């Protein structure tokens, strides 16, 4: 029992690390060039120097913008207690100006323990916001506005952005506006008056390079040697991890995975999957864990569907493909049957089934959505006359046939003939 529990402990430690953004982005704290340090420096200098600032965080989805911002805000709240109040708005919810101002007023009331009235008008809310900015300015408190999905605020008349950025132009207010967006041209979407008031500081969050991804992996997977886990076990675990990282097969899988999407979120998803596949009997990670994770994430549903098809169904699909290649415009069950007969006649195949069996197979394919009908007008004509089309591309079909366990060679020949 005791031996089991430390492996479980190791597994839950790894899992909790992957889900904790603080742990993932910690190695970046030390380098002064990182976005964390730059953002922290900008915000802390705005707070201590009491000057207004606006920053834009840009980067693809899942590259850690919100995570790093949360870290910085958390650190600043500890360093400068009572000098910051944070207001969060989201472009998905508050892109309408009335709604946004109401939300700003509500959050300000919440922060400062004031009564918030739902019946306040747009005018009242905006006057309240301006008055609060003045008051906080006098009291040396900085208000940090975090605008998530910044590009959605730039739709319409951009009144909220204008009033926020304009309030920052006056000497009485002390505020920092931080916009987060995944559009690279977010600041081009702003009107020219709003863009003029925006201070053009941009922090780019780029996905990590291959080496950086490897070092993140190493950082997450290395168990701490001097902790509650048994020393030998931790050392052995780390050694196995190093072996995996040096393995050529792993490198191939890793590169293949990151070639599709190299953001941090994608990487973490892969790691979580792999760690969850860890064999609890041995308690160590292996290369196979990573390969299982890869195949479970990069699924191709249509190919899996093909694996379960019968030979007759494969024949029907190949016949439809041939009709498509011959550019025959009408493709319904009857024409497929004609083609099937042709194939049977020219190649003398052994798999020739009766018409009603083929109809059954055809309907089966419709149910599995490998084929669909092209007319949406209803079931006016019978199944045999309605036009149909393939929902699976020729390359997928090709791949599926190759992977099929006992595919007759004739099908390969038929597919290859089209080239």
């Amino acid at each position, binding site marked *: 029992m005791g031996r089991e529990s430390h492996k479980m402990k190791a597994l839950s430690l790894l899992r909790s690390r992957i889900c904790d953004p603080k742990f993932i982005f910690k190695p970046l704290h030390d380098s002064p060039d990182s976005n964390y340090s730059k953002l922290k420096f900008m915000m802390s200098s705005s707070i201590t*120097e009491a000057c207004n600032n606006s920053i834009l965080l840009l980067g693809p989805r899942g590259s850690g913008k919100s995570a790093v911002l949360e870290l910085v805000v958390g650190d600043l709240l500890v360093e400068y207690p009572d000098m910051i109040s944070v207001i969060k708005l989201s472009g998905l919810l508050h892109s309408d100006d009335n709604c946004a101002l109401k939300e700003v007023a509500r959050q300000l009331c919440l922060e400062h323990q004031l009564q918030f009235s739902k019946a306040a*008008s747009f005018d009242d809310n905006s006057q309240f916001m301006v008055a609060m900015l003045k008051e906080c300015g006098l009291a040396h408190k900085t208000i940090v506005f975090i605008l998530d999905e910044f590009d959605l605020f730039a739709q319409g008349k951009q009144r909220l952005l204008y009033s926020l950025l304009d309030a920052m132009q006056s000497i009485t207010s002390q505020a920092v506006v931080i916009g987060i967006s995944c559009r690279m041209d977010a600041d081009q979407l702003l009107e020219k*008056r709003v863009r003029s008031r925006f201070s*053009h500081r941009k922090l780019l969050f*780029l996905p990590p390079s291959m080496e950086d991804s490897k070092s993140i992996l190493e950082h997450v997977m290395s168990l701490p040697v001097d902790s509650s886990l048994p020393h030998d076990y931790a050392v052995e675990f780390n050694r196995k991890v190093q072996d995996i990282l040096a393995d050529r097969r792993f490198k191939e899988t890793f590169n293949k995975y990151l070639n*599709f999407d190299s953001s941090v979120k994608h990487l973490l998803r892969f790691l979580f999957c792999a760690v969850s596949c860890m064999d609890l009997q041995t308690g160590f990670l292996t290369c196979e864990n990573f390969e299982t994770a890869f195949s479970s994430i990069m699924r191709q549903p*249509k190919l899996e569907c093909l694996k379960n098809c019968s030979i007759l169904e494969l024949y029907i699909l190949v016949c439809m493909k041939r009709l498509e290649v011959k550019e025959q415009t009408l493709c319904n069950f009857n024409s497929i049957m004609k083609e099937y007969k042709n194939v049977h006649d020219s190649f003398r195949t052994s798999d020739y089934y009766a018409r009603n069996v083929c109809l059954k197979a055809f309907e089966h394919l419709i149910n599995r959505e490998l084929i669909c009908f092209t007319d949406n007008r209803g079931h006016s004509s019978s199944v045999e006359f309605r036009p149909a089309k393939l929902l699976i591309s020729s390359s997928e079909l090709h791949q599926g046939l190759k992977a099929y366990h006992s595919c007759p060679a004739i099908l390969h020949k038929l597919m290859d003939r089209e080239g």
Partner: protein
Amino acid sequence: MAIVPEKTASDARSDPNSTPGKRKLRSDGPLIMDSPISSPTKWKSPRQCSSENKDGAVAAKEMVANEGEIKSHKSPSKSMQDSFADKLKWNPKDGEQVRTVKEALHVSTAPSTIVCREDEQNMVFEFCKSCVEHKKAGSIYICGCPGTGKSLSMEKVKKLLVDWAKQAGFLQLDVLSVNCTSLANTSDIFSKMLGLNQPQGKKTEASSLQQLQSLYSQKSSGQKMILMVVDELDYLITKDRAVLHDLFTLTTFPFSRCILIGISNAIDLADRFLPRLKSLNCKPIIVTFRAYSKDQILSILKERLRELPYTVFQHQALELCARKVAASSGDMRKALCICRSAIEMLEAEIRESIGLSEISLEEKASPRQNIASDPNHVKQEFDAVRIDHVALALSKTYRSPLVDTIQSLPHHQQIILCSSMKQFRGAKKDTILGELYKSYTGICKSSLIPPAGILEFSNMCRVLNDQGLIKLGPSREDKLKRVTLNIDEADVTFALQGIRFFRNCLQ
């Protein structure tokens, strides 16, 4: 709201233990009555009395006095350079000094004199003066690009007019400042005007506009003149342009009392939206605020830095900044922002050198002796913002993040961009996702890379759409979505030129 007096702020600054104080709310310097909008060299800032370095202040005061005397002999630029030479060295490692400089360069710090806009201010001021003297209404329309000093100048003119009216013995002027973005309804502007006239706020049957119109059609003695400054006038433009029209025609009524100053960015607002005003003979006077030229930007920056007792920028650095900003937009806010950015570059450099020197000290202390001396680690004099700092700040502001983004995209997404470029080579500018997938698999096959499945492919296209690199149209079926390239093809070619695979691909 208490106004922080100057004395306590300076005390706070000299006390090292106090929290960083709030910036002083400045009061204006003494006004010179004969020429209200004076050129800056005749006027000395009272702030110099409270600067931190007492000796520096004395020296600076003497220097400015000298400068005034010798101004007549030397050309302006030369005397400025002399004043640079005479000033003290700036110590950027001192946090307090850096803070003062950044404050002087901040956009929200309104300078006490507004240089380079004297002509425009004079024009408006004279017009308003004549309106007040003859008790007639009038309208002015001020236009110009953002960041050209319109609102700032109007604030100044407002103050001057109120003071002048008081001095010249006219009835106290009512001033109303409205920013049209804060109006929920466009016709609220009339109720704001009415609120000024009738503080009781009687709610009668007629709308505010009608009340104003009836008010201005009747003679009533002892009525005060109203000065209205309406900012961001184009927010009042409605479909039938009624509100804008009515606002300007209020000045044509026989007993109208308002001087209307409208500010906007559109140069031809009056021509486009108010054609009937011409026939009514009440077309507003148009004052255009041109974008700043390089010399103007340079003189404004120098004016802001003049009040400081030390030299912050090298002359070429300021000139580079002014030149670049004038060439691109002539927006003063951008110039100020770039200067502050350059100061931050200098700070970053200082922090890095401190870090390096710490590392080298540690290495010296360790028993391992053989360290090749770092050629870059020379004791650098950090005393002014150099031209390379400004160049770095400029490149950060003006460079779009596009090239970096494309270069850091994962491999397959770059292939998608290439295949879309190949598709749109000819006259066709858009295609559907299914076609793009075919092109993508073609490129992958030709270079023996296994292509992604259609599901993964449409995921990647969605990611590219979120980033704004391609645009996906709506459709019920994934394969039928329309795809267009949202960025310039030259950018993609430039970004991917370093990789041979893509170079061959794009040929």
